[in-house]
């Protein structure tokens, strides 16, 4: 069981959270200007890395606020947390 640190509520049990998938995907400002390949890339194609992953999480059974996290997809260990809209912290 993972322990996840909500930036607002502190360390809580994983079952209180839901994972919102890859972070830093922004909806294209002009969808009409995209071709089918670019639109598909935005909708469906993902990084899916084996290692460090930048993700969105929501403390769904808590404060219900979203935040970003960096997590290792092999060890499942959380490496850093940061706010929505913020740039990810620099890591080695």
């Amino acid at each position: 069981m993972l322990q996840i640190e909500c930036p607002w509520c502190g360390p809580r049990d994983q079952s209180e959270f839901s994972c919102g998938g890859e972070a830093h995907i922004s909806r294209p400002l002009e969808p009409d200007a995209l071709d089918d390949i670019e639109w598909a890339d935005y909708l469906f194609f993902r990084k899916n890395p084996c290692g460090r992953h930048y993700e969105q999480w929501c403390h769904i059974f808590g404060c219900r606020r979203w935040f970003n996290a960096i997590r290792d997809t092999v060890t499942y260990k959380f490496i850093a947390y940061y706010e929505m809209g913020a740039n990810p912290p620099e890591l080695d």
Partner: protein
Amino acid sequence: MKKKYSIFSIARNALTSHANWQAAWRSSDPKKAYDVIIIGGGGHGLATAYYLAKTFGISNVAVLEKGWIGGGNTGRNTTIVRSNYLWDESARIYEKSLKLWESLSQDINYNVMFSQRGVLNLGHTLQDMRDIERRSNANYLNGIDSEVLTTADVARLVPILDTSPDARYPILGASLQKRGGVARHDAVAWGFARAADQLGVDIIQNCEVTGIQRNEGRVSGVYTSRGTINASNVGIVTAGHSSTVAEMAGLRLPVESHPLQALVSEPLKPILHTVVMSNAVHGYISQSDKGELVIGAGVDSYVGYGQRGSFSIIEGNLSAIVELFPAFSRVRMLRQWGGIVDVCPDACPIIGETDVRGLYINCGWGTGGFKATPGSGWVFAHTIATGQPHALNAPFSIKRFNTGALIDEHGAAGVAH
């Protein structure tokens, strides 16, 4: 030449205390070049190599496996085989697979213990039952057997299910595919490996692919932990690791890899003679020939490559199983494990060409790849051998994510993850 397995070979080997059985396949060292390289020695990769050699006459083939044969998802699933999918495209490819299963043991001279004990999909709400009737009717139209059962039918077939109206999620009925069932998963990997080896395919274990060599938009070989191997055709069949291998050729995929868990109980005397699946409470269960209850759980929602999942998933899964089968409440679980499944946005696989000429990919089977093993291998072998997808896998091109022609099997096919 390998000796054929038969009742006589068992008797003959019994006389020498079974000390002289031949190895099931050669331990090959990689040659400098092959006609076709298959990356990934799981069931799908081995089946691809077997059908390439047997059906399409291409036997200068290497299967590269980074670990050992049967050590990945092929040995980590719940062994269920069925073809009762909703949409025409999926129904056809899974039914092709089921037809191959029905004669597979004879075909590859290896007992894969395919047991058509029936697969029951339970309905717990009015909407479940409407979906089940719709799916069963769709199955009829595609020539796939499916029956709609009432609660009384279900109670007669599986008396240990709690079919009382005061159950928390009462069972209102079910669909039954009698031709569905289970197979011995390790035997599938070993059987395909042995049969492919016999036709001249090199099976190379402990050989990890580290890069994909390309030349002017065309694949020319692979870099591996055991040196560079040339080939003008390469097939990627690496399930949970599809994204990382595809990235070696600069390809991006619409899949995400998730841990999917399963567990087995201590062995019991025969108590459950069919496969029972429930979408609504989310659990699926069958009893192995050894007597263990084989139970499938759900995926974790986060991306994970660790071959293990969350405890909360098991907890939710077992509470669903105990709701359905109160008699199992004191059964102890023996083992639990996870496999990495690559899930597509529409819960259907990707089988076909890529933007790199000569490089083919077979991935995205998500949580339901085991049942498709022979069919997936067959259509992928056709695609590699002819350079063109077969009619059965043409709808499963990666291009469907650009055209929008998705095949949405999420929730339509028995158990949604």
